[in-house]
């Protein structure tokens, strides 16, 4: 079923919307949650919460891209779950992602104003636009979808070291872009 037909079902308050959403995006949403939380049980709960949130927000929301809309909800819910459970348990995968992204933070905080999340997202958006499609997809697959380096390396028929090297160079480029904006994090 096409995305706009699924959205129409939400607007009609037809519960088949959830079933169709699950059939089309269930696997993707589960992988986003699982990549961040490393727990089947938590991931299933997060995916169900995503459907719940989508049901309650569409309408009035009418997303241009249902895939991105649902993915974003899942990612946010997973981050919240991770934050809530962080004190109880360490999630290795997300810790790893955060530590890698720490490389992108400019060394010197010369300007007093702190960049808010929206501004930061705009700078990252602009930076992503300048990348080649392959580099952009690689960066997003690792840091948005949280895919493991080994899995990405498999898809590219190369070694994990090679992918890690490419990711490192991309992080350095992002760091440079953030430094050019002269805003501290």
């Amino acid at each position: 079923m096409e995305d706009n037909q699924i959205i129409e079902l939400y607007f009609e308050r037809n519960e088949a919307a959830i079933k169709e959403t699950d059939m089309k995006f269930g696997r993707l949403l589960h992988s986003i949650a699982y990549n961040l939380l490393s727990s089947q049980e938590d991931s299933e709960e997060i995916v169900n919460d995503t459907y719940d949130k989508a049901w309650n927000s569409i309408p009035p929301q009418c997303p241009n891209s249902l895939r991105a809309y649902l993915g974003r909800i899942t990612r946010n819910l997973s981050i919240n779950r991770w934050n809530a459970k962080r004190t109880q348990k360490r999630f290795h995968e997300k810790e790893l992602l955060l530590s890698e992204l720490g490389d992108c933070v400019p060394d010197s905080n010369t300007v007093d104003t702190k960049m808010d999340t929206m501004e930061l997202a705009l700078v990252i958006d602009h930076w992503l636009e300048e990348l080649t499609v392959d580099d952009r997809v690689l960066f997003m697959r690792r840091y948005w979808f949280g895919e493991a380096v080994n899995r990405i390396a498999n898809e590219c028929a190369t070694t994990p070291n090679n992918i890690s090297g490419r990711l490192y160079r991309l992080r350095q480029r992002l760091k440079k872009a953030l430094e050019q904006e002269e805003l501290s994090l």
Partner: protein
Amino acid sequence: MKGKRIFDALTRVRDEYIDEASRTKLKKQHSGFRKLLTVAAGLVVVLGIGTILALQGLLPFGGSSGGAGHMGGSTFMSYAGPVFPMSLSKEDSDIAANRNIVYDF
């Protein structure tokens, strides 16, 4: 943690990048070793063919020695003098023909 703000901000990037990343397959990469292997295999083929041609004397340069007068000889080896025998319509004892062949290798 330093990377957390970037990680959180990433959630808000444009929809099209999220769509693109979830639909696009990453390009397969050829590692340096594979490239080297491909170049080496190419070189082996070229050298092999070259060796076979050289052994059979089919290369256009550095041909076999002693091939003067050979049909396939180069213009350097060709004869540009008069063609014998020469004939006259009337017999003339004042005319003499001398042949002088110089082998200049």
